[in-house]
């Protein structure tokens, strides 16, 4: 017996412990209909419509009843954000939101607020992001009155206890200390700085000094300026009676006065005319990759064509070009893709991302670059377009899968100044997109010559040096 046949027997043995699939095919497959030839009508659904009301103090209310479970949920959007905080007080907006929740009110100390929330098993949170503030209450129906009273108190009368501010500041500083602990967060953060500029409100980041400089009076003033009823929308969903709840909300916020707000001017983003290659040296076995440039705003008329372009290029999960090639065919990455994240008040970003073994870094980067170049050179195939459109149209129904989601979407459309029939027209707008549109928007919004290419990894061990992609700028991390 020669060597090969011995080995082959061993191989068979390993299979023979259990029935092999070819020896005993399960009957199911042959009897099943072929999913490739099945056809279905587009799902038809008339989602419930929330009711919109404006209260006398200017507060906008969206209401949608849902009596399935004994729960009530409120979502608040406040026009504010870290884009409005002064450059030497970065983190002020975030801390204001956090301490509204933890720092007590005129009626209750911070510890009492914690106690009330935990004792009635409510979820109550406040948070302020880049261009919006939010607050959420999720409470059992039986506790709604108490929950609403506390929620209104927190929104109107926070006292920002000094001790709670100190804890939050210390924790924020600790998180700054830790922000270089993970290569993926280094990559995302440094990429963002390159795209928006380290001084722009969308690109800048807190330092220990900016956090230390924030004092209680800053929070009081920030809250006083933006938390006024005419600057707030509230969405309510759950097990309530519409008429009854409006009266309750009016009462809870009674005495809260309208006020005019002067929003600070936000410096607009200066688009870079050049790209660049950036390296951050870390002695790790896997390289984090980010490639991209400025993107579009959501109100761009090309938004729909761009969304489909992105779906085909790298946004569409397992079927996108980047995923199929870089991950499935080449086995170079676990996570790889692209996203045209639309901006709201400012332009968003286009970003292609992935991570790969140190000695396949150049191969992965150049494969991604090839796909970006190719999609603006050649039209996508009919098949790709058809698939992407079907995916958008057929999954659209999931945008309405819960009343809270419906209300939340309606509010954010209004907040960001998008047409109120945006969703109703969404399907038509997607259906209209052609191959020519996609090629046109690819040429218009993808710029290979302006790409920022950023890699966090062990530069010396790459399959080819980054310098083969252009002049490399080394970024020294500041902790």
């Amino acid at each position, binding site marked *: 017996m020669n060597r090969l046949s011995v080995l*082959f027997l061993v*191989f068979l043995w*390993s299979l023979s*412990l*259990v*029935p*092999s*699939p070819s020896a*005993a095919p*399960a*009957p*199911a*497959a042959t*009897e*099943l209909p*072929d*999913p*490739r030839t*099945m056809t*279905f009508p587009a*799902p038809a*659904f008339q989602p419930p419509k929330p009711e919109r009301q404006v209260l006398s103090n200017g507060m906008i209310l969206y209401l949608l009843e849902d009596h*399935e*479970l*004994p729960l009530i949920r409120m979502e608040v959007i406040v026009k504010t954000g870290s884009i409005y905080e002064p450059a030497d007080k970065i983190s002020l907006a975030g801390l204001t939101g956090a301490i509204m929740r933890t720092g007590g009110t005129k009626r209750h100390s911070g510890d009492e607020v*914690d106690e009330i*929330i*935990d*004792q009635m098993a409510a979820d109550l949170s406040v948070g302020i992001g880049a261009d919006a503030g939010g607050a959420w209450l*999720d409470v*059992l129906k*039986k506790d709604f009155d108490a929950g609403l009273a506390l929620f209104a108190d927190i929104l109107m009368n926070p006292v920002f206890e000094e001790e709670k501010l*100190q*804890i939050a*500041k*210390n924790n924020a500083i*600790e998180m700054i*200390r830790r922000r270089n*602990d993970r290569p*993926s967060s280094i990559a995302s953060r440094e990429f963002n700085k390159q795209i928006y500029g380290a001084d722009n409100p969308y690109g800048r980041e807190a330092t220990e000094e900016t956090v230390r400089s924030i004092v209680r009076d800053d929070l009081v003033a920030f809250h006083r300026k933006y938390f006024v009823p005419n600057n707030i929308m509230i969405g309510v969903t759950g*097990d309530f009676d519409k008429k009854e709840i409006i009266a309750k909300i009016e009462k809870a916020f009674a005495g809260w006065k309208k006020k005019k707000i002067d929003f600070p001017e936000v410096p607009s983003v200066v688009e870079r005319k050049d790209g660049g290659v950036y390296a951050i040296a870390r002695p*790790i*076995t*896997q390289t984090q990759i980010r490639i991209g440039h400025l993107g579009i705003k959501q109100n761009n008329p090309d938004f729909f064509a761009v969304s489909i372009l992105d779906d085909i290029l790298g946004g569409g999960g*397992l*079927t996108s070009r980047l*995923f*199929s090639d870089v991950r*499935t*065919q080449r*086995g170079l990455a*676990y996570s790889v893709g692209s996203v045209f994240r639309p901006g709201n008040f400012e332009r968003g970003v286009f970003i292609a991302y992935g991570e*790969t*073994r140190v000695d396949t870094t150049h191969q992965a980067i150049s494969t991604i670059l090839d796909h970006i170049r190719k999609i603006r050179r050649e039209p996508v195939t009919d098949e790709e377009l058809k*698939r992407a459109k079907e995916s958008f149209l057929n999954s659209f*129904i*999931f945008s309405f*899968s*819960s009343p809270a989601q419906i209300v939340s979407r309606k509010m954010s459309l209004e907040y960001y100044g998008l047409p109120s029939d945006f969703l109703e027209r969404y399907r038509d707008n997607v259906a209209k997109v052609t191959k020519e549109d996609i090629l046109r928007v690819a040429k218009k919004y993808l710029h290979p010559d302006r790409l920022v290419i950023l890699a966090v990894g062990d530069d010396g061990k790459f399959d080819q040096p980054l310098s083969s992609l252009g002049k490399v700028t080394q970024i020294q*991390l500041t902790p």
Partner: protein
Amino acid sequence: MKKPVFLFVILFVCSLSGTAASAQSLADRVVEHTLSNGLTVLMVERHQAPIISFRITYKVGSVNEHSGITGVAHLYEHMAFKGTQRLGTSDYQKEKEVLEELEGLNWEIVQEEAKGSEADSERLKGLREKFEALEKEAKQWVVTNELAELYNRNGSVGFNASTSRDVTSYVVSLPSNRLPLWVAIEADRMANTVLREFYKERDVVLEERRRSVDTNPGGKLYETFLATAFLAHPYGYPTIGWPSDVGSLSAAETERFFRTYYTPSNTVIAMVGDFKVAEVIPLLEKTFGSIPSGPPPPPVVTVEPPQLGERRVEVEDEANPQVVIGYHKPNFEHPDDPVFDVIDSLLSLGRTSRLYKKLVVEKKIAVGASSSSGTPGARYANLFTLSATPRAPHTAAEVEEAIYEELERLKNEPPTEKELEKVITNLNADLVRSLRSNSGLASQLAYFEAVAGDWRYVLRNRDKIMKVTGEDVMRVARTYFTKKNRTVATLVQVLPAGEPGGKALPILKEGGQ
């Protein structure tokens, strides 16, 4: 064919008076049905929107692995996206021949490599070249990601899968009129998955490992912690596998694992959404029900021996410190298990919890602290864990000390009535909230059915938790929270050589407290 069993369960009692009716009306609609081959199906009709969430859970995870094949359950999870004998291929018969040839060749390479320094490098080179050529040949029959594409164009949301120590789950949500499509794909996938593109996908998993463990300090710490706490039991293996094991898994070995564990009687299907139970059952019988039921899979026999003394381990990295502490405890069936659930809540539920109040608010030595009962799984004896992130200049050791003080307190003074009441209120509220989304409900039902053998475990456990007394808490704390029964893992910051001063932030003086 068995008749469906309609369950009338009184889910929520007195503590939610006035709210019980509506919650109950939904729970009443859980329909349980066992197919003729032993596959369990749990169904809940919900007609708010024309969508359905599907979840297929197999009672198999990395706990069913042994040394040498760690990571195989997770790798199979990846392979089940590659299609079947019909999907993902343009000609399965031809493809099959090449795939079998590839396996033979792989075995030859493995044997040659095993010779180490004695290996014939010329022969190895030739074999590898041949292997690559064969992979290319196999590729010509592959229809890339066809299964995903079918779901995608039919409007799927959340098409994914996950593997844990105890279970493996495949999930997707679809517009409700696509139910027959789901059946056609999943019944085929359950019976006829083809392990194509195996060796490329193995590379993908190794990338996944580098991402979630090797370049993730928290991931590294957790992996080392578990490997230290379990000397014998497979709960100590990382679910993603040790890199050398993953790197030498073969398609044949993976297929064997699949044939052993992924049998109908080892499977639970949960579906929640807009469909009619009466119409679905015959369809499931005809399709999933015709998959032959294999012999019951072998049980996990290894039992972790009692710990003989405290275990301590350090993981060095460029990152800032963290600490994890674990105590061995029994599995979900043991009467002490619900007591640990109560202790977990007392220690870390919300801002009024003991750890948050002591470590973050009072002592100000940590930015966060948490606990968890049932790490890394629940089916077999597991761990009660505590973890914390110290705040400089405070050290992991200081944080550890403060945690022990809280554990000592549990041993010596019973929790207040108010604290126990809070635990129950939150538990009940969580139960109501878990019913909110189709996918969330499907996940709960499938998980408890698979791990505890009955989805009603959630309700039974809730009743047990309600009966836990302050005495129980003290007894359990005294029994289990001992130094001898403890494993401690610490992430220690080490700066790269040749970096004067390092990149770490100098520790500044305390903020005004």
